[in-house]
């Protein structure tokens, strides 16, 4: 559910930022090697905050920066109640 939402939003942000379609992602895909730069991920995080109602980066003292797509999804899943 959260994963689906992330993927749909990522596809949209990716298209708007790069004018290209999101390439196929695996769990091990490194976020900054997908073709979306950190500005693109910054926009993704704020779009997801609007869609999901929370920003997992600021949720606790255990802040982490995700490196791969799997870690990114896990970060959001962890705080989805």
């Amino acid at each position, binding site marked *: 559910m959260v994963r689906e939402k992330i993927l749909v939003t990522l596809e949209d942000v990716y298209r708007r*930022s790069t004018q290209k379609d999101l390439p196929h992602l695996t769990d091990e895909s*490194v*976020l*900054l090697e997908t073709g979306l730069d*950190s*500005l693109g*991920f*910054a*926009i993704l*995080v*704020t779009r997801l905050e609007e869609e999901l109602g929370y*920003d997992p*980066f*600021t949720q606790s*003292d*255990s*802040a*982490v*920066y*995700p*490196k*791969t797509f799997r870690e990114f999804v896990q970060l959001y899943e962890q705080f989805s109640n």
Partner: protein
Amino acid sequence: MILREFLSRVPADRLAVNDCTVGDLLSAAGKIRQRGFKGARVAIQGQDVARAAALLAALDGNADAILLLPAALNASVAADLAGKAECDAFLTDVNPELHDDDASQSSPDLLGREAMSSHRQNVQTGTTKWILATSGTTGAPKLVAHSLRSLTRTTKIDVDRAADVRWGLLYDHARYAGLQVLLQGLVSGGGITAPANTSDLKQTIRTFAERRCTHVSGTPTVWRKILMLPESELLPLRQVTLGGEIADDVILSALRNRYPQARISHVFASTEAGVGFSVSDGRAGFPIAYLENPPANIRLRVRDDRLFVHNGDVNPSYLSSEDRFADADGFVDTGDVVEIRGDRVIFLGRANGVINVGGNKVHPERVERVLLEHNQVQFARVYAKSNPIVGALVAADVKAAAHVADEAAFKDSVRAFCAGRLEPYETPAFVRVVSELKLSAAGKLERI
């Protein structure tokens, strides 16, 4: 003490910069000294950090002044600054046309020719001026004079303990932040890994990992990017330093989680103010107690929500300019807006409203002007919205000139209009349609 004396206390076979040992540096410095430069004013613009270090060791205590110019400065700006600093020699490996040497030399290096300064006086030990250019984000770069003493005032020196310390240099060594790292390494006897090109962050971090770098200093922006790279797991860090931008609780906490063995410090410093101070308690801002009992011989003051600092070691004026940047009491306006929250002084942003988006500076007025060119926008206000990935994003409140039937379509049209006229980092990531915008008492759009 001069730089050569500091280096002489370090074992000669210890690595200093990249593969160059302390002994190599001192011997190169000795050769450079034989070529002159006594009492001269020397501009250095170098990419090769080992060569620059040898030059600095040769010139400190020998030359009257050293002007350090960032490698990225173009030739005409560099020449102009060298003129302003009244330099007699220009040594460069990036702008061959400025190289102060025989024009026929095919591979310019940083050695230049002898300074032609018979009229110059010998300088007294320790009085060489170290002149740096401000980053020039507002107008042309300005020159500020420091000394080795002021630049290394907070440097901890323990030559034995530094034996297994290796700094990874992410900044240009001719910028204030980079020079601090270089001098910290040289003066305390720690090694420095300085890749020739740091634009590929992934490769740079790999190099730092291969060279077993234990100490790295970077901006919060660069640390956020590093933490998103799998290579970040390979760094055996014992010291993580953040500077140059606001370090928020999210990045401090994420660094602590990734590098539990490391001491994490965020540094406040500006070229004008000289060495500032660092905070290592893992929390954003600094303790309010610093206003009464400041660290490191500086003084701090909050006035009109702005932070002022006092540092007696820096000449409180720009070189070749009447502008003094310190007030009558010697306090320098940092331009940082602060707020006292509980027992902390927290940095909110820049007084001029400039928004830092992942290291790029955005002037809100410029974005507002573009928004107002959209024929359906009547008023616009641009502000920062904090973001964990790039520190801040640009947000805009707009008031439509007429009733908007389809708000989503209107926002898309505003965003597309901006995207065609502004850099991606300047384009508002959020657009909010509002029915009215708050005006200040003076009738101006309020900036918060």
